[in-house]
């Protein structure tokens, strides 16, 4: 068990994927007669303002949170790693120019950048994922650049060049595979940010009308009634915290073990 938190995160992902099968009720079925019931025998986590079962909604909503955050992570990783590797490989002026772009990008606080993207592309789940991911690109680029520069200094890279390898070949066959563990560890951190930030955008009402909401949008809906029925807020918030906490711990652990 060298990576307990990594296993736990994977287990959590599997649970979230099969969770809808475990839901006792239809997450969308309204029942005005049972509105705002506290947690109890009939509804383990209580009901919301429309009498919908909170447990079933949390179990269904996890998939959307996971989908949005995973999509955002991919959106952040692909261009981020590309930019970082390019900067490291090119060096000199191109590196300096890319670094300036990365820094300017970082100067945009993540949520503000996301709000701009949503202003341009409109409200929706994909837009939220794109906005969240776009804001995380510069951080990934910086980590990938540093990792690639470290690997490039190692002797086997010079050996690959000396053997007549082209720049592209050396980067994809030698540098990228050896920089991958550092990037993978940072992907965990990126995912944790993506969960928090995409849920924050949903909470601000930018995910639009979803049918079954994700956890952030559930918190947004629960805002109206949480004074009378705090359980409608507590369940999805706790779910977000668990997911982010395990992702963060798994990433920390990966980063620590890489250092030895």
């Amino acid at each position, binding site marked *: 068990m060298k990576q307990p938190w990594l296993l736990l995160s994977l287990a959590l992902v599997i649970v979230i994927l099969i969770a809808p099968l475990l839901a006792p009720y239809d997450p969308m079925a309204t029942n005005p007669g049972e509105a705002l019931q506290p947690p109890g025998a009939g509804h383990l986590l209580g009901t919301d303002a429309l009498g919908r079962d909170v447990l079933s909604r949390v179990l269904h909503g996890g998939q959307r949170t996971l989908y949005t955050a995973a999509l955002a992570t991919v959106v952040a990783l692909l261009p981020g790693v590309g930019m970082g590797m390019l900067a490291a490989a090119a060096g000199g002026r191109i590196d300096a120019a890319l670094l300036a772009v990365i820094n*300017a990008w970082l100067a945009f606080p993540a949520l503000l950048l996301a709000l701009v993207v949503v202003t341009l592309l409109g409200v929706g789940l994909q837009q939220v994922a794109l906005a969240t991911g776009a804001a995380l690109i510069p951080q990934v680029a910086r980590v990938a650049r540093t990792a690639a520069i470290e690997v490039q200094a190692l002797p086997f890279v010079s050996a690959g060049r000396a053997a007549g390898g082209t720049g592209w070949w050396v980067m994809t066959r030698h540098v990228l595979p050896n920089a991958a563990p550092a990037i993978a560890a940072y992907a965990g951190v990126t995912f944790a940010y993506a969960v928090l930030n995409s849920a924050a955008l949903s909470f601000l009402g930018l995910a639009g009308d979803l049918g079954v909401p994700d956890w952030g949008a559930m918190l947004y809906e629960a805002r109206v009634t949480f004074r009378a029925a705090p359980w409608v807020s507590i369940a999805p918030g706790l779910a*977000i915290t668990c997911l982010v906490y395990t992702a963060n711990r798994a990433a920390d652990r990966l980063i620590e073990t890489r250092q030895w």
Partner: protein
Amino acid sequence: MPLVRRILWAAIVVWLTATAAFIALRLLPGDAIAAQLMDSGADAAAIQARRDALGLNDPWTVQYIRFLAGLLRGDLGESLNSGQSVSELIAFNLGPTITLAGAALAVAIGLGLGLGLAAALPGWRIVGGAARFAISLGLSTPIYWTGTLAIYVFTVQLALLPSGGAGRLSQLILPAAVLGFHTATGVARVVQHSVQSAAGADFVRVARAKGLPERHVWLRHVLRAGLLPVTTVIALQAGFLLSGVVITEALFVRPGLGRLLLDATLRQDYPVVQGVVMLTAVMYVAVNTVADLLNRLLDPRVRV
């Protein structure tokens, strides 16, 4: 001249940000602004007149130069919704936001240093463990959720503090505490790592080998080196603070820049979004540049 170079870079970053904001606005499907006006009941001739007045029919280069010139004069255009000047809207909303951000920053520095030191100092098993747990928890909990819980406990259950509005001190406590706590955990994590790594550094081993008392080693050597990055972290946390302000103001129904930005986003009021984003980018760059220069002043190792 590191000072001149640093300021030049900051100016370039701000210019890149402004250009990105300009391009983003022009990338909009041509009639998005017209559609916006149509919703508010304008006819085709009025829209055309408006486009002319806004200068949207001029060539891009002219628009770009006019945009930059406007920025230099502090003219950020007009709101599409109310026709008010964006600079006025910002000036009107700046006060409550600065109050909130300032109070939250004070909480963040105090609490962040306390938590970070408690987590890093040796010999405090239980306190240190609790501090480390609080830090991880704060980094993993959504701010809008802690805020909701805080309102539930302090407003609904205990009826101690109001949950919304701005102006009175009692209305500031909850939002500043919530935003401050989340900012503090980011500060605390860096303080903890920095102090721990300073404690293992060679100059600390030398200090011990010289026979200095442990108290002296910690106060004069470990903490002095370990607390240096704090200025940088606090500057970096300014970005978090700016994002957090948007959420905190929405949650606690406070007037301010965050609310202005969010409302403008939902109504697609582009000039207002652009203006607020420009302002925050400038503030962020300024804070980071100052922190960088301060660091040079405090740490002889960074002076090149």
